[in-house]
């Protein structure tokens, strides 16, 4: 498979974006809105002009600022799927797909299960159908690289889940270097084998999703992976344990080593919830009122003071968890990560 290598700087309205990235299979960039995610795609597609750096597909230079090369969008073999799909409203589905290239229109309509919609106008389609048309159109161009801008953001929560599965399968079949940007970490994990966290115009961490969850390099990465992040300050080191005093005054213990202002990272699924205090191996204990209970699939997310814990539906019922009830949350020192706060 081909490799897209991008290493460039882009001057945006309020900040500068710098990025070095090789896309071989599927990479997802996550980050808050305003982090410059879409601008990365636009720069690769040729809709924005980098101030410096290089963008190349295999040996083929698309941008090389030093050598004065910057190809027009139509000279790059790129398939960009826009956030709200940008289908041509005045053209039928078939004509939209054919706009990218006439050779494989029927095959693509078939493959994306939109043959029956060939004569329809985009405004008559559902969100999922529009996405399939946008993908088919991008592929009709025979691109060397596929770029997806928030592919699931324009869909309502109900369709999103099924479209995500569908998209997963489709991407696996394309065998194209693919770069996805999304603000949703779960979407990123579902769609890509490598995830990069983009904050304030810079790539904070790039790696496999498990890597980001297990050892986040900084608080942003931690909060993006859905982990709890508790602010505190280290107050002592003893027996290989670091003691952290939280802003709320409570003491926590971690097997990680750090000094000064830190964020204590702990994942919701590493936290046990009980009605009574249990004297077990978990060193860290936080008690508090249940703030909220939210069902997520077959799990329940419980908010206890500053923490979010995840328990099974059965446990939640057994413990008779309810808002306002006092519970104990415990987690092991080995289940925490300390990330320095700047």
């Amino acid at each position: 498979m081909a490799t897209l290598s991008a290493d460039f700087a882009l001057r945006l309205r309020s900040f500068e974006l710098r990025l070095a990235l090789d896309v071989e299979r599927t990479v997802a960039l996550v980050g808050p809105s305003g982090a410059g995610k879409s601008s990365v795609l636009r720069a690769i597609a040729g809709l924005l002009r980098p101030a410096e750096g290089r963008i190349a597909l295999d040996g083929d230079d698309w941008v090389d600022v030093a050598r004065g090369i910057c190809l027009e969008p139509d000279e790059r073999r790129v398939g960009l799927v826009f956030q709200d799909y940008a289908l041509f409203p005045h053209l039928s589905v078939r004509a939209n797909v054919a706009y990218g290239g006439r050779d494989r229109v029927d095959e693509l309509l078939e493959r994306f299960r939109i043959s029956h919609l060939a004569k329809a106008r985009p405004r008559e389609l559902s969100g999922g159908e529009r996405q399939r048309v946008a993908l088919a159109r991008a592929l009709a161009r025979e691109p060397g690289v596929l770029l997806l801008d928030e592919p699931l953001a324009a869909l309502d929560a109900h369709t999103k889940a099924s479209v995500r599965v569908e998209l997963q399968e489709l991407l696996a079949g394309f065998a194209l270097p693919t770069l996805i940007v999304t603000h949703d970490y779960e979407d990123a994990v579902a769609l890509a084998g490598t995830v990069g966290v983009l904050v304030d115009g810079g790539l904070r961490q790039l790696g496999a999703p498990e890597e980001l969850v297990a050892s986040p390099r900084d608080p942003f990465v931690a909060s993006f992976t859905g982990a709890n992040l508790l602010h505190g300050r280290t107050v002592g080191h003893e027996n290989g344990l670091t003691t952290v005093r939280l802003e709320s005054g409570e003491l926590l213990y971690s097997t990680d080593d750090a000094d000064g202002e830190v964020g204590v990272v702990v994942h919701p699924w590493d936290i046990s919830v009980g009605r009574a205090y249990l004297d077990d191996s978990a060193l860290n204990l936080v008690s508090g009122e249940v703030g909220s209970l939210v069902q997520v699939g077959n799990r329940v997310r419980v908010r206890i003071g500053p923490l979010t814990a995840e328990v099974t539906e059965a446990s939640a019922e057994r413990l008779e968890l309810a808002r306002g009830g006092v519970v104990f949350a415990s987690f092991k020192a080995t289940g925490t990560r300390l990330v320095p706060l700047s």
Partner: protein
Amino acid sequence: MRRRLLAVLFFGASAVALVFLVLPVVAIFTRVPPGRLLHLLSSPVVTDALVVSFKATAIAQGLILVFGTPAAYLLATRRFRGRTLLVTLVELPLVLPPAVAGIGLLAAFGRFGLLGSTFRFLGIDVSFTQTAVVMAVAFVASPLYIRTAIAAFEAVDPDLVAASRTLGAGSTRTFFRVVLPLAANGLAAGESLAFARGLGEFGATIMFAGSLQGVTQTLPLAIYAEFSVNFDLALALGALLVAISAALLLTLRLILSWRPSPRISPSVFAPSS
């Protein structure tokens, strides 16, 4: 009580406004019996004026489309210093009193005008010719078209243009296959407004082109020339213009009501920049 008084005032005001606007139009058709009106329309003054009017307006519209469309597109899509000033300058003829437009055209292109000697050197003399009629019409009507066309081009979603480019279309192909079709309704609306304005052009034409029957005498000029000589004929010309204008307005209404929205899926989410 006060509520009723307000309602009476509003209805009263509306009635006065309506009667005031409609009465002159109705009067044109009632002063002279319809049969005679039709008969008068076959007089040479009317047919000559009709030919001059339509010829000049059609040529002017062609020029407005050819020169105005690219200008409107650039003004709609480019951001540069002085853009607002430029747009204001382009729109100025719209609010200029027709007499000022006429004197301006004379001062620029007339025999003793700014370009007068250049034109004379080239063997061109525009004043008091049909060319002058075309220029007067184009001068007063084109800002209406350009203004509407700028709005139409601005309404085309820039993402659709970007999509076209990434799909391998160059900027020319993108313009003709995406931008133009999506702006077409707005352009047609602007065009019919400009057409109506051009057809009714009076002040600038009479000053810059004169009122020669069969050469520069357009329909409105013919009304002016006839109303002291043959009032009935002037009325017949008036009736003709009312009919044409009504047809234009109706066309415009149809164009505007048949408008596929340019944006198809407005996202409820803020775009991630």
